[in-house]
């Protein structure tokens, strides 16, 4: 995993390929078969364990994901925050807690899909692949946090420049090439997840209830445009 060739393949070709597939795939699917965009909830079939699995998982994973994005967008502020040991520790513990929450929730959700016969009925092989990918990603993330601590600092200092170099189409691999295997695995898995998104139920992340918060409570559709009400 350390030759220059594999490094460029994994950290240059892979991310561009994943993003290309992601954008093209999701847009194509949204326009071609919008009917398949759904959360595909199974709460209707099983309610109790759904709560104990899906709620911790979503809150955990979304918090952790947001933290990654913040470190990508605001590296200087993160580093300034980390400059005091107490604040660094607090951030580290919080991150770990939410990651654990995600792991516990994910395991709960997988166990539920495995053991409840009704829920199993609406679970496809692809669903299992997604769940396994997520499990690997959450687990490697946790291992990185435990074995290579102070991630908030080195992410902001090392990975953020790498990611921005990708954005600017001028990839710089110095930091990732020297990164530990666990970190590399975590990064590659992230690209895999982004790449498979258009072909899985993960597209439901993209259909957050956007206009809902601002729109009026009632929705009316006209076939003929009504008189403009002054």
């Amino acid at each position, binding site marked *: 995993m350390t030759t220059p060739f594999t490094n460029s393949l994994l950290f240059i070709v892979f991310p561009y390929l994943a993003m290309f597939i992601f954008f093209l795939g999701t847009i194509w699917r949204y326009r071609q078969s919008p009917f398949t965009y*759904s959360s595909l909830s199974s*709460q209707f079939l099983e309610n109790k364990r759904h709560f104990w699995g899906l709620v911790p998982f979503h809150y955990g994973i979304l918090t952790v994901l947001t933290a990654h994005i913040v470190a990508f967008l605001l590296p200087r502020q993160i580093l300034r925050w980390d400059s005091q040991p107490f604040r660094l520790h607090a951030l580290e513990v919080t991150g770990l807690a939410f990651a654990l929450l995600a792991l516990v929730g994910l395991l709960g959700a997988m166990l539920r899909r495995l053991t409840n016969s009704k829920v*199993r009925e609406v679970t496809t092989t692809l669903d299992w692949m997604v769940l396994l990918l997520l499990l690997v990603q959450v687990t490697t993330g946790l291992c990185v946090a435990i074995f290579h601590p102070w991630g908030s600092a080195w992410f902001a200092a090392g990975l953020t420049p790498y990611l921005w170099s990708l954005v600017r189409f001028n990839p710089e691999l110095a930091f990732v090439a020297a990164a530990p295997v666990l970190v590399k695995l975590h990064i590659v898995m992230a690209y895999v997840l982004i790449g498979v998104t258009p072909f899985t139920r993960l597209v439901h992340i993209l*259909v957050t209830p956007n206009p809902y918060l601002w729109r009026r409570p009632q929705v009316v559709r006209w076939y003929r445009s009504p008189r403009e009400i002054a």
Partner: protein
Amino acid sequence: MDVRSQVSMVFHLDKCIGCHTCSIACKNIWTDRRGTEYMWWNNVETKPGTGFPTDWEDQEKYHGGWEVKNGKLGLRSTGKAQTIFNIYHNPSMPTMDDYYEPWTYDYQHLFNAPEGKDQPTARPISMVTGELIQIEAGPNWDDDLGGSPVYAESDPNLKGLTPDQRAQLFAVERLVMFYFPRICNHCLNPACVASCPSGALYKRGEDGIVLVDQERCRGWRMCVAACPYKKMFYNWNTGKSEKCILCFPRVETGQAPACFHSCVGRIRYLGVLLYDASRIEELASRPAAELIEAQRSLILDPHDPEVIAAARQNGIHDSVIASAQRSPVYQFVKVWKIALPPHIEYRTMPMLFYVPPMSPVMSHQANGTIHNASDELFHDIEASRVPLQFLANIFGAGNDAFVRYALRKQKAVRWHRRALTVGDVDKATADRMLQAAQCSPEEAEAIYRLTSLCTFDDRFVIPPMHREEAIQMLEDPLERKQAAGFGFVSGPRRGL
């Protein structure tokens, strides 16, 4: 004034015989697909009873409908911010157990069973998992169980009844029940539409039919919890919500909805109401006791020149206005005031109205003979076998005045006709009853005609939909109906 038109309905409960033909017609046309087996867009409940899904009227349990919080109208089940937090797990979501697990029977076993000592049986298998199941509930599970301590006594509408009234309802020799057919009410202030985070649910501007855009629905399930009538259903197979579409493909082509068309007792009426959309929010926020009057005041007189002018300005076609003028629903609801909305206290402004049912005649025994008359004109309504308070809890937001008015008028019409045709009732008494029920002889005749002698065209005054002015359907919408539903041009495909 913002005049809009709404295809509205009246169900005349005094004529309902509880045959479920409506439910079957609906099921065969619309919910015969995988994932929809458990749905009954149209169902007929026995009252008192727990209904479908079980105890749907118990909003302490399901949190459906609207409530007024600090003078502002808001959904009971969710708010805007709450929706975001609850999107991963909806705390008010009913599950399949609240409806029932659909099943079929292993009929093949009857043919393929190896020779043995016992007769082979066709055991029930779940239509979800295909495994053998123990049936614990099913469609119309409490059908006709009027006096049942398990079902009827759990009816949420028994709230507020005195112990005497309850005892009367459940005394074996005086058991009573009536039927309560239900479809989507196509409300003016639909809770399902307001709760939808995706904006997939909408009310059609031209006719008020409430629909789910299957391509925009993301399966967040807020509508299922928000609808207080539990007429939003989650298709567990496609991951989308579905609901009664008022057979819009039929209505658009001038045919009555299937459940209306097939109704054996001819209890169903359909017609256009014109209403003032600008006042919905204000009127839906009124105190519960005023809601019935408030909703009536929303409905506009289609003969009023001012209303007609405002309707035309809003783009309502003259043919629709003419249809509104002939609407049987307008007569029942606004002119005669004998059709009442179900559970108006949920504040969704339902546009399906019910004529409350008359009870069997109360009689008493004296000196070995049965007497069923009294000097009081309306004694059997006051001492009705179905307590007025029970009916009022369903059709009057707890206020029995509206139900009493409707029942008195119905009885007066009967006695008026009896005096005319049978002659065993004194004409003077009948006239006195009409007067007491605030009903003129002409009105009584009109009620009698529309109730008893109504033809197909009297019952269903379907407005022309002018689809020629709308977006044209290019493909055959029926092609994939049995597999994916109406309007699908590609095969059924569950999201990846």
